[in-house]
């Protein structure tokens, strides 16, 4: 008799008795369910891509009629859509810059110093992430209403920075806390003054955390709808708000074109980056 090995979850070890379909299924159930979950996540994106080539009969692009590249050749052919896209980009870039800067400062304070009021500050940072958007959106809207602030670009920007801040702080703080304090000591030991130490060592080391916080901010801001809806003015229609409005009146195919283009572009960048990193690792 061979040595008893307590059934492992490892797959593909054919030496372990005859391969029965039931056994195979048991061993790979996780993978099957996982792939199904992945399909669930990705099918809508594929539908969006597919329907960007549709030529719908009416105003709504929900049923397939005939193949067409009309929308792709004229992406800005719909009134106001590209303008809203520009507005969203503008707000996302500004909100990312402000939130990343302020959030990084706060993260350094929380990661590097002991001070009175630290736990309160931590709670203040955590709370926006544990609050439904509709509550934050409505309450900030109430503030602007009560103080008679004109809703528009600035109010949207304020709102976006507000909810992005926490995410930046969390991302940067985690990074700074995991940094070896000896590295900065080494810099000081090697003739770097306080400013040079920060610029040459601390900042480059914290950069991945800062970049992660910035990317998260950009994505959150660009795609935010709920909080924006409560704090936008009549003439400031961001891209998600445009889509929302379109969903009531009729969705142009160009919306799918924008959605698909962003999807394909981002995927290409990420996968390209991965490939390049892999190649660099090998060489």
């Amino acid at each position: 008799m061979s040595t008893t090995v307590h059934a492992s979850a490892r797959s593909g070890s054919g030496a372990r008795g005859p391969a029965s379909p039931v056994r195979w299924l048991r061993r790979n159930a996780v993978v099957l369910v996982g792939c199904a979950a992945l399909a669930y996540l990705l099918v809508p994106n594929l539908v969006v891509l597919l329907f960007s080539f549709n030529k719908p009969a009416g105003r709504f692009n929900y049923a397939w009629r005939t193949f067409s590249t009309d929308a792709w050749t004229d992406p800005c052919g719909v009134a106001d859509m590209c303008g809203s896209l520009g507005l969203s980009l503008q707000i996302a870039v500004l909100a990312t810059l402000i939130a990343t800067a302020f959030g990084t400062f706060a993260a350094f304070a929380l990661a590097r110093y002991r001070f009175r009021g630290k736990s309160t500050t931590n709670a203040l940072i955590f709370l926006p992430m544990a609050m439904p958007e509709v509550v934050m959106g409505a309450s900030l809207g109430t503030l602007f209403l009560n103080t008679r602030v004109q809703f528009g670009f600035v109010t949207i920007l304020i709102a976006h920075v507000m909810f992005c801040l926490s995410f930046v702080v969390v991302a940067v703080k985690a990074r700074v806390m995991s940094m070896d304090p000896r590295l900065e000591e080494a810099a000081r030991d090697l003739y770097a003054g306080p400013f040079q130490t920060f610029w040459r060592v601390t900042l480059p080391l914290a950069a991945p955390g800062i970049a992660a916080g910035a990317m998260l901010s950009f994505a959150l801001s660009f795609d935010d709808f709920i909080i924006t809806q409560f704090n936008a003015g009549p003439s400031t229609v961001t891209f998600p708000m445009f889509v929302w409005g379109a969903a009531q009146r009729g969705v142009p195919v160009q919306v799918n074109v924008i959605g698909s283009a962003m999807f394909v572009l981002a995927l290409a960048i990420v996968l390209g980056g991965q490939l390049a990193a892999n190649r660099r690792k090998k060489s």
Partner: protein
Amino acid sequence: MTAVAPLSSSGPAPSGAAPGGEQDPDAAVTDSGGGRARRGLTPYWLLLPAGLWLAVFFVAPLFYQASTSVQSGSLEEGFRVTWQFSNYTDALGTYGTHFVRSFGYAAVATALCLLIGYPLAYMIAVRAGRWRNLLLVLVIAPFFTSFLIRTLAWKTILSDGGPVVSVLSSLHILDVTSWLGLTGGERVLATPLAVVCGLTYNFLPFMILPLYSSLERIDTSLLEAARDLYAKPATTFRKVTFPLSLPGVVAGTLLTFIPASGDYINAQLLGSPNEQMVGNAIQKQFLNVLDYPTAAAMSFILMALILIMVSVYMRKAGTEELV
């Protein structure tokens, strides 16, 4: 202010910590460079912009909202604080079912996310090997398309007479869901099922990512130790893997449940007026009816209920160091 002391080596051990090299406790870095007084204020200066921003645009609005929630009046005459607590009872009376529906849908969607997300997270963390990074990219890839557009895609997928509905119908699944009150007739769109399906879809990545990061951190030698100690795969999972992934489960369920219970987009786009959630009610009162006191009262009730549920849950789960 004198309580300020810079601390440079608290928290987890530095990443490059000693393989075999012994760490002196006296190596503990407690910097005490010059200029102590000036240094004492540094953290406050660093916190000032973010803290001020959050105080003015996050905390203060909550107080404004609290005050608005007890106002009475009308848009024409203006609203005044009259300690009108009936706003709360009225809101609960009128929109009680909305609250129940919100938390019900959010709970079901969270459970589904856990059920669907766990195998995927486990597959990526344990079984994916060199495909791991690619799979992670695929999990976040949906984010690259605006979530409103993706939610609209479900209208196509679940459309009446479409392939999904036909298959569900011919397998008599629709009969079952219809009997459960989740669907009606030969439709999926404009039913609770569609809304829950949309919620689950929208928040699934928020479940998968924390699950993945806690599963990925598990030392595989622990699983080998469990097997060595005669645990069957199922037992290993139940006694070792799952308990160790609990922080991810807690974080994931919170990240799913909280936004799902306040969501109104899925109910609006995929549901009918019968599936309206509390978010829809707040949005309508605030943006269409312009009845700010009622909107504020509802929003306050929602916030309070969620905070209570979250704190009870976190105490039960025993993991309070999440963020």
